[in-house]
């Protein structure tokens, strides 16, 4: 069976490309084919997972070469897949959540005339993402990396008739290019320094290279990860990416693609293990993003943007955990999976709410929706409890472990994650209160109604997964499962017992939730947002996404524009000026020469006569001499 893992990629790829070129007659059934293709991948993934789980712990890794992709002198790249416990978990997450979102989209996109195309893009995305996680070579990862970038671009801009969507797609593409540059440079560095881009070989031979090489490689990979995972400083595209259809936000910009950066860091654990500095950089980036994302999430009134801020923040957690080294890799992946469940759940729930509210995304127009949308409310509540880390829910286990590990690494980092947990509770409670509780604030012509079953069933499944995802940690299963990939985990002894740590976290979460309840649950919410001038600076900063766009504008765009203008000026006035100036001088000289050419025959005759005289005088002079 494990020889057929390539089918995981091939099925959605063939389905997606096939439907894309099939034509209009596929409009009627294309979405079903796409969903079945995704589901088939999922089934294959489950079968492969069971077979892998059945093997010995040392034997759980299969590398299968399909064909030689590039063969150029010493440079050799195989098109090969590497199926190991880490890849297996990702395959299940991608195909599982992906299939649910395919099903959900059948309902959500039912009235869109370009539905077939939407499903084609989703399938292509699934194929590219699976290529990314199954790749055995960094160059193949890069292939999938660009593939998901393309799919993300196509899907963010799916409603391209909206200028904002087209601009958001372009922005995502451009910002991702910055990250991709880092990734490409990292791969080139690998080849230059280690002579190979094969993941296993790189991780094995990085020890022989100097620490500075490992640091450079790690920082470049981190740049790539920042771009894909919307980490500071390349975070600005994610909030705009919410212009895409909501299932896209759930699948690509919450559950799977944006976590590719975390995957890349974990997959390159050999490199990061070899460089303390690179790991520190990862921790710093993760911590900053965690707090920035949470801050933004507190200030946004747009439900999808609030969730997007939350996504940034949660990926910050994962990134931070990945930066902790072997102590954190497993927890990063664990949180990644539970987050995949509950964030996809909440995004789809938000989509269901928008569906009910005529595509209005402003939470200030919601309120008291729990009675109108009971199923959505219930499943959303499961996701909510999971993300804030309510005891027993999946997020509780995964986040606890990260905070614990962070405290084991450094007290200040630990306090930062703890603060993040509190803020998470605050903004998620705010979101819940504004959406489902309080008084109804929607306008009269809006009639909220529960979504059809095809949309609510995925919600229920994901809700259940949010509730039960913590089971993966039972008996440290996931840590043992990932050990062959990420290495042995040392256990940190904290100054205080783990149980007390959990109690502290729960207490902080409770404080955050209570604050939000007091602010938004007890008091009526204005249905028009206060103006920027009426709110204090933290809110203002959050609303403006921590001025990320302005910072990019000031630090990158303007200097580049100025440089360009200077160059254009130099080119125009300097180089062109010299050339055109030369031409101008020649022109002026010609103008001067024009003057004697006056058309008057007698002037010409005078010239001739004077010339003849000159010749005569010259002849005479020569003769006399």
């Amino acid at each position, binding site marked *: 069976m494990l020889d057929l893992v390539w089918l995981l990629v091939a099925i959605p790829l063939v389905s997606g490309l096939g439907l894309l070129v099939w034509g209009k007659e596929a409009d009627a059934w294309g979405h079903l084919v796409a969903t079945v293709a995704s589901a088939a991948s999922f089934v294959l993934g489950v079968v492969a997972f069971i077979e892998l789980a059945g093997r010995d712990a040392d034997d759980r890794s299969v590398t299968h070469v399909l064909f030689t992709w590039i063969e150029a002198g010493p440079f050799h790249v195989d098109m090969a897949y590497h199926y190991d416990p880490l890849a297996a978990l990702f395959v299940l997450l991608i195909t599982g959540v992906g299939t649910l979102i395919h099903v959900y989209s059948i309902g959500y996109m039912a009235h869109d005339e370009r539905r077939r195309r939407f499903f084609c893009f989703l399938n292509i995305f699934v194929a590219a993402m699976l290529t990314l996680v199954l790749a055995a070579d960094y160059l193949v990862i890069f292939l999938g990396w660009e593939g998901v970038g393309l799919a993300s671009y196509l899907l963010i801009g799916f409603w391209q008739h909206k200028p904002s969507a087209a601009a958001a797609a372009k922005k995502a593409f451009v910002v991702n290019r910055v990250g991709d540059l880092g990734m490409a440079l990292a791969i080139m560095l690998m080849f230059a320094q280690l002579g190979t881009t094969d993941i296993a070989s790189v991780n094995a031979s990085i020890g022989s290279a100097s620490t500075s090489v490992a640091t450079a490689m790690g920082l470049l990979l981190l740049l790539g990860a920042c771009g894909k995972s919307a980490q500071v400083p390349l975070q600005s595209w994610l909030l705009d990416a919410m212009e895409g259809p909501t299932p896209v936000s759930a699948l690509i910009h919450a559950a799977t693609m944006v976590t590719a950066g975390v995957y890349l860091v974990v997959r390159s654990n050999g490199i990061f293990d070899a460089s303390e500095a690179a790991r520190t950089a990862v921790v710093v980036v993760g911590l900053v993003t965690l707090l920035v994302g949470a801050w933004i999430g507190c200030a946004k009134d747009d439900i999808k943007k609030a969730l997007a801020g939350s996504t940034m923040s949660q990926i910050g957690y994962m990134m931070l955990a990945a930066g902790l080294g072997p102590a954190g890799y497993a927890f990063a992946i664990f949180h990644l999976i539970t987050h995949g469940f509950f964030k996809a759940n909440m995004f789809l729930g938000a989509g269901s709410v928008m569906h009910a509210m005529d595509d209005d995304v402003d939470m200030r127009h919601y309120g008291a929706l729990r009675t109108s949308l009971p199923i959505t409310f219930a499943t959303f509540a499961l996701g909510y409890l999971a993300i804030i880390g309510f005891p027993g829910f999946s997020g509780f286990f995964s986040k606890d472990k990260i905070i614990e590990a962070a405290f084991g690494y450094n007290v200040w980092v630990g306090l930062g994650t703890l603060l993040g947990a509190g803020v998470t509770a605050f903004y998620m409670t705010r979101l819940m209160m504004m959406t489902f509780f309080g008084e109804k604030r929607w306008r009269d012509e809006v009639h909220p109604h529960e979504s059809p079953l095809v949309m609510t069933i995925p919600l229920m499944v994901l809700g259940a997964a949010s509730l039960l995802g913590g089971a993966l940690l039972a008996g440290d299963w996931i840590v043992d499962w990932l050990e062959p990939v990420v290495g042995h985990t040392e256990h940190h002894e904290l100054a205080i017992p783990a149980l007390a740590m959990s109690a502290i976290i729960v207490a902080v979460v409770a404080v955050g939730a209570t604050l939000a309840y007091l602010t938004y649950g007890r008091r009526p919410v204005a249905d028009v947002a206060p103006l920027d001038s009426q709110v204090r600076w933290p809110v203002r900063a959050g609303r403006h996404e921590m001025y990320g766009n302005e910072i990019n504008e000031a630090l990158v765009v303007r200097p580049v524009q100025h440089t360009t203008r200077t160059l254009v000026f130099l080119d125009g006035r300097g180089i062109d000026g010299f050339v055109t100036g030369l031409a101008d001088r020649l022109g002026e000289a010609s103008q001067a020469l024009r003057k004697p050419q006056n058309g008057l025959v007698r*002037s010409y005759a005078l010239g001739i006569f004077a010339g003849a*005289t000159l010749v005569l005088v010259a002849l*005479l002079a020569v003769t006399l001499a």
Partner: protein
Amino acid sequence: MTAFWTLAPVMVVAALGLLFARKAVHAALCLAVVMISLAVQYAALGAPFLFAVQIIVYTGAIMMLFLFVLMLVGVDTSDSLKETIAGQRLAATVVGLLFGVVAVLAIGQTVTGAVTGLGQANENGNPFGLAELLFGPYVLAFELTSALLITAALGAMVLAHRERLGARASQATLAERRMREYAETGRHPGNPPTPGVYARDNAVDLPARLPDGTSAPDSVSQVLRDRGQVRPAPGAKDPVDPADTTDTGPREVEE
């Protein structure tokens, strides 16, 4: 040498007349003087055939041609002697003097040795000697000049020919045009009045007198009016207003 020394000053003066004569006709006459004097010089230099040719071709044909063209272009037009190109006259004078002095001093002194004279060459008569050369060694050039002359004659005809663009106006159309002009502008369709004929001045440059004693400017030829050569009719109550005549260019008013 008597002929030379007699004629040389005349020729130089006549040539200078070519430079200073204001009227083209005077210049042509000066040129004719130079050419005839040249013919005499030829005769003195033992070239009686060229003497005849010079008289016939130059003074006879070419000068006549010049005079004809002068008549066509306007015999009365004279150059204003004001120079229009800045410095042209001064430069021409300087260059001309330089050229003349250098040429006369240098080239004029190159011929040395005794004069051979044409006594032997003209043994059988000058035209006979020329004919021997023309139809001997120079026969090809001679034939070519005949081709050149024919080409030149054809070229002149082509250049001077004017293409008729429309049909020739018939008497009927002319009459119709006159009547239409009368209808539109009130111009009289009949003949203009003839110039006045008086006891003292039987001339075309006097306007006719109308019954009321005023003069009729229309009666004088347009050409004379253009030149401003209309004299006031004796005894007319209103002499022709000079402003009535339209001046079309710098023309000299003759008495």
